[in-house]
């Protein structure tokens, strides 16, 4: 019915936007010195380079070049990654799952923590917990993620040595199979407790640092949303029915407060993807972020462009998922009520 129509419309928009993104990425590649640099490996002969130039029609007008570049992308040819010394497509899967694991862990912390804190703040407005939550929200929005990471590194890694850097201890990591690519999940699937523990130990600190900024955004939105819904007439009507306050807050106020918060959650994932760049760098997490930072320092264009494409795609898909959830939460949006 209408919900499905709405979602189909949104789904159809996605490829159009991705094409737009690809145009932007393509334009950026033409700013570099030699566009062929994306595809060329360091030990190619001039003949091979010339062959590449012909293959991608680099002497033809720009739109043709775009067509061939796009064709290459869709065929899986994203160029040669200088920093990984391999074709981009070979390496990107691994990097992506590493970043996803980190981002999902951070998202979990940010969403659960943010909703809980925001609800308490909204219900106990202008009292103790509210002031604490608002302070937290503003601090989170103003703190540079990379600095926060360094700040936490000092006590937890330097002094206490509780949390190690990197993603895993190589021996333990290699001892299990990796069906999903997510270390935590895989260790559970393998039934290997020490691997799971290893995964968690490495994941905690970077996930917390990453979650900080996103959680602040969610807390703030949830709080203001709760304040608004708590003053709605139907909350009073629920009380007038004799329902206990706890149920009134959870079932009536909070359920409606979720709706605007859902959009913020989608946006905060973008925040997570951005923050991942610095966090991965600091905590030596082998994901897309640290990959692209090395690429920047060595001028590896292919990696950077692939990074932009992949991140935009992930971001769009997450937002789409949020929109689906939103459409189910608030039927009025879809049915235009």
């Amino acid at each position, binding site marked *: 019915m209408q919900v499905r129509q709405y979602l189909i419309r949104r789904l159809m928009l996605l490829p159009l936007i991705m094409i737009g993104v690809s145009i932007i990425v393509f334009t950026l590649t033409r700013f570099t010195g030699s566009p062929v640099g994306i595809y060329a490996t360091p030990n190619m002969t001039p003949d091979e380079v010339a062959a590449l130039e012909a293959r991608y029609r680099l002497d033809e007008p720009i739109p043709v070049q775009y067509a061939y570049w796009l064709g290459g992308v869709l065929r899986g040819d994203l160029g040669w990654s200088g920093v990984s010394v391999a074709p981009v497509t070979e390496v990107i899967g691994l990097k992506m799952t590493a970043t996803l694991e980190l981002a999902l862990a951070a998202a979990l912390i940010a969403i659960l923590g943010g909703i809980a804190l925001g609800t308490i703040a909204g219900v106990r407005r202008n009292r103790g917990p509210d002031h604490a939550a608002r302070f937290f929200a503003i601090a989170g929005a*103003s703190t540079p993620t990379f*600095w926060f990471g360094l700040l936490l590194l000092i006590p937890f890694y330097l002094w206490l040595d509780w949390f190690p850097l990197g993603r895993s201890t190589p021996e333990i990591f290699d001892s299990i199979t990796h069906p999903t690519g997510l270390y935590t999940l895989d260790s559970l699937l393998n039934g290997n407790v020490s691997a799971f523990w290893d995964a968690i130990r490495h994941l905690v600190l970077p996930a917390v640092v990453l979650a900080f900024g996103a959680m602040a955004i969610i807390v703030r939105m949830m709080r203001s949303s709760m304040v608004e819904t708590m003053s709605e007439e139907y909350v009073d009507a629920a009380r007038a029915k004799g329902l206990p306050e706890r149920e009134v807050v959870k079932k009536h106020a909070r359920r409606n407060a979720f709706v605007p918060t859902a959009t913020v959650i989608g946006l905060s994932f973008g925040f997570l993807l*951005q923050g991942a760049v610095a966090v991965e760098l600091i905590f030596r997490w082998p994901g897309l972020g640290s990959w692209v930072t090395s690429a920047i320092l060595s001028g590896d264009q292919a990696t950077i462009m692939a990074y932009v494409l992949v991140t935009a795609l992930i971001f769009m898909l997450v937002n789409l998922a949020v929109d689906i959830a939103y459409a189910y939460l608030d039927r009025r949006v879809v049915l235009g009520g």
Partner: protein
Amino acid sequence: MTAVMGEQSSSVDPNTAPRHSASSVRWARRLEVFREVLRNPLTVIGFVIIILFLLMAIFAPLLVGANEPDPYQSPRDWANIDVPPGEAGHVLGTDSTGGDVLYGIVWGSRLSLQLSLTVVISTLVIGTIVGSVAAMRGGRVDNFLMRIVDVFLAIPELIFALAIAAVLGPSFRNIILALAVVFWVKYARIIRGEIIRVKQTDYVAAAKVVGDSTWNVYRKDVLPNAITPMVVQATLDMGNVVLIGAALSYIGLAQAGLTEWGAMVSAGQSGILAGQWWVSTFAGLAILLWALAFNLVGDGLRDVLDPKTEGR
């Protein structure tokens, strides 16, 4: 024949009420808003911090002197490298090349000011133009422009700016450019939304009925109302731009040794393992205070100008 209670006669005689010109009423209202904003102590703190940074930036040469030939490179005191705060005449210590941390922070504020003002003003202008055109023209023009906005919004800000700056080459100038390219879309969307909302109100319809030209309606009725969320967003962005710009320099997209706060954090981080905490900490603190100040003021403005989002 309903009798609704509460019918009252007005007690003000329109013939003797004092007259105000439209513009003086507007200024009086702005003053009132300003006073209301200042009633919040947090907002006042934000303002104070901003003013301090402003003074720091303007009077940088007087405060710590200007290094030759490039004031944005810290003077190297090679005799006193890695000095902790308070020693050897360096109030906040030095980094591993003898660069004075205080100097970096003060001149860094100039860079932050330059960065944020340039980006915010230019993106405001571009965004307003694009968004206004889209909303006032409507139809295909609107559709086309908004698709472009959607595409830009699909790429997270930092990542987009990162790619642009990487392609153009590492320099502070390119960071400014990259951020300008990325940030304008937000404003386009805000003003387009506001214009569309205002277009549907009754007073605009009334203006049109009276025969006002489109430009006049736009200038007098639409724009003043649409400005509010833009002002709030611009204030917040003054902080956000510096946050993202610092992240970009941290990653390495600015020139080496620049007295930019993000670059300083990066320069100081290897020292952390050796216990030299002061470089990164103070530089990061500067970024935090800058962003905090603008967030506080932006929040305060939003509370006053857009009452439906918050009630104190």
